[in-house]
């Protein structure tokens, strides 16, 4: 399976955010945040609810625009691009609440993903049917590899809306892998997932990272984030309040105060 490298683009997945700002009226959802998700590393983004993490995620992925600041992927500006342009540049995301194509099978969910499919052009399905069929066969093979890698073979032909929430998280990860992305943004991959499936998700992320894939992960599960991430960025009230090695960062008093409200200390 060739999911962890991006030979087509040659990108490493280094994501750099500089002075990102986004306000909704008088609320500064993201207020001058800067950090870098280094290539080939797993960077965690944590913070209490309302810290601005998902807003920042949406801005990076092109779903929302920043008021100011820059977002670059391997030195190329991707801030302000539309979601499909951001995707084409090598960045793929998953969602906090899974968004599978519910009435399509898991396999079809994956087959949708690859870009520039000949059969996506209407007329090619008549005048270029041979080429479309060949490409479909190749994509199907790749999709089955990804499905097996994500432990989804048993549900490959089931509608994605009928499988468990945890499996849907895996489908989102699998969809992301179909794109051979340079970097994957995971929005709470562990939320609402049973422990067995969570182990599978973690194993797969670690394996993909070992192969060179870059990750930026929002997560509330501190055990997961400290065991998984190489570095951690903490946001609160729209601002970055800490950055560094996970175990050092979460031990800081200001982080405990902001993120855990001091209760866990």
């Amino acid at each position, binding site marked *: 399976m060739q999911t962890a490298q991006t030979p087509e683009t040659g990108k490493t997945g280094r994501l750099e955010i500089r002075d990102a700002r986004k306000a909704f009226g008088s609320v500064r959802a993201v207020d001058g945040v800067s950090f870098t998700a280094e290539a080939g590393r797993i960077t965690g983004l944590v913070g209490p609810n309302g810290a601005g993490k998902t807003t920042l995620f949406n801005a990076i992925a092109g*779903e929302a625009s920043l008021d100011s600041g820059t977002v670059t992927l391997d030195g190329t500006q991707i801030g302000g691009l539309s979601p*499909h342009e951001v995707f084409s540049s090598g960045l793929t995301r998953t*969602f906090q609440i899974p*968004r599978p*194509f519910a*009435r399509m099978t898991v396999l079809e969910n994956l087959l949708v993903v690859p870009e520039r499919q000949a059969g996506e052009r209407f007329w090619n399905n008549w005048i270029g049917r041979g080429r479309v069929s060949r490409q479909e066969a190749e994509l199907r093979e790749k999709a089955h590899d990804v499905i097996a890698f994500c432990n989804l073979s048993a549900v490959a032909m089931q509608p994605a809306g009928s499988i468990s929430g945890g499996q849907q998280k895996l489908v989102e990860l699998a969809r992301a892998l179909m794109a051979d992305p340079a970097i994957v943004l995971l929005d709470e991959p562990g939320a609402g997932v049973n422990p067995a499936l969570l182990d599978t998700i973690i194993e797969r992320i670690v394996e993909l990272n070992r192969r060179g894939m870059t990750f930026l992960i929002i997560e509330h599960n501190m055990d997961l984030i400290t065991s998984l991430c190489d570095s951690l960025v903490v946001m609160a009230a729209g601002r970055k309040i800490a950055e560094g090695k996970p175990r050092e960062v979460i031990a800081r008093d200001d982080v405990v105060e902001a993120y855990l409200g001091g209760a866990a200390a």
Partner: protein
Amino acid sequence: MSGFGIYLVFFLIIALNYGIMVLGLNLQWGYTGLFNAGVVGFYAIGAYGTAILAGPDRAALIGGFGLPFPLAILGGMILCALAAIVVGLATLKLREEYLAIATFGIAITIQLVALNFESLTGGANGLVGLPRPFIDAFESTTSYNLFFLAVVACVTGLVYVALEAAVRSPWGRLLNAVREDEVAARSLGKNIALIRLQAFVLGCTLIGLSGGIYVAFIGFVSPLDFLPILTFQIWAMLIVGGSGNNAGALLGAIVVWALWTMSGLAISRFSPVGFQNQAGAIQTMLIGLLIVSMLIFRPRGLIGERATVSSHKERGAP
């Protein structure tokens, strides 16, 4: 041929022609999730476009190009496609309900233009006396209608086969992805606006084809043929037959049109003489009742959506 046989041929011509329209709507709603509540507007554009292009030259009217019907129908379809591009660009960013309201309003506008733009459409009188294609080759109306039924059946069959190939391809998979979750599809690199526009324009072009065939068969066109009730009838056909299934769309067209005509016959036969006009409203109520009943008791329709969309996948799937 018996009276029933003659009527059956007439019935099937209309039902299959409506079937083309339902197939167009199914592409938009069943496969792409576009709530087009202005079906009748595009049907009118196809019908008037065909009538203007095929009709004889008239001193008081614009148009009357006297084109052969196949060309005139093609012209009507192109007009419909152009109108759909304009309407689509203006409205397709709207969410479901708002798109429905916008397209419904546009259909009303088109009907009002047909009613009032007398120098082009003949106004309330419509365009009458259109030549019937190839009618001179037939000795009786019955044999002509049989010929027309064969043509309509062939066209409907071609449209069905072409659409099946389209929706069960990677292109159809894109439509389904957009229907299921636009945000997810966009985040996976898909150009949602373009996909929605393609499905809308292609669906409207098929609706325009149906309008052109209707004119060729009936031989005249009137603004009274394009009232909003037709949009609801077409929607009822899709809901009853099974949204997201082309065979269901055709089945729905036949079933609902049969119910409509039978209820009309029953009302005309059994309602008191002085109550005939009011009794006609019962038909409309029945359409509403049918839609609501199906949505409650069998939301998937008579033939529900199939689980897969890729014919390529099915051949070689493990």
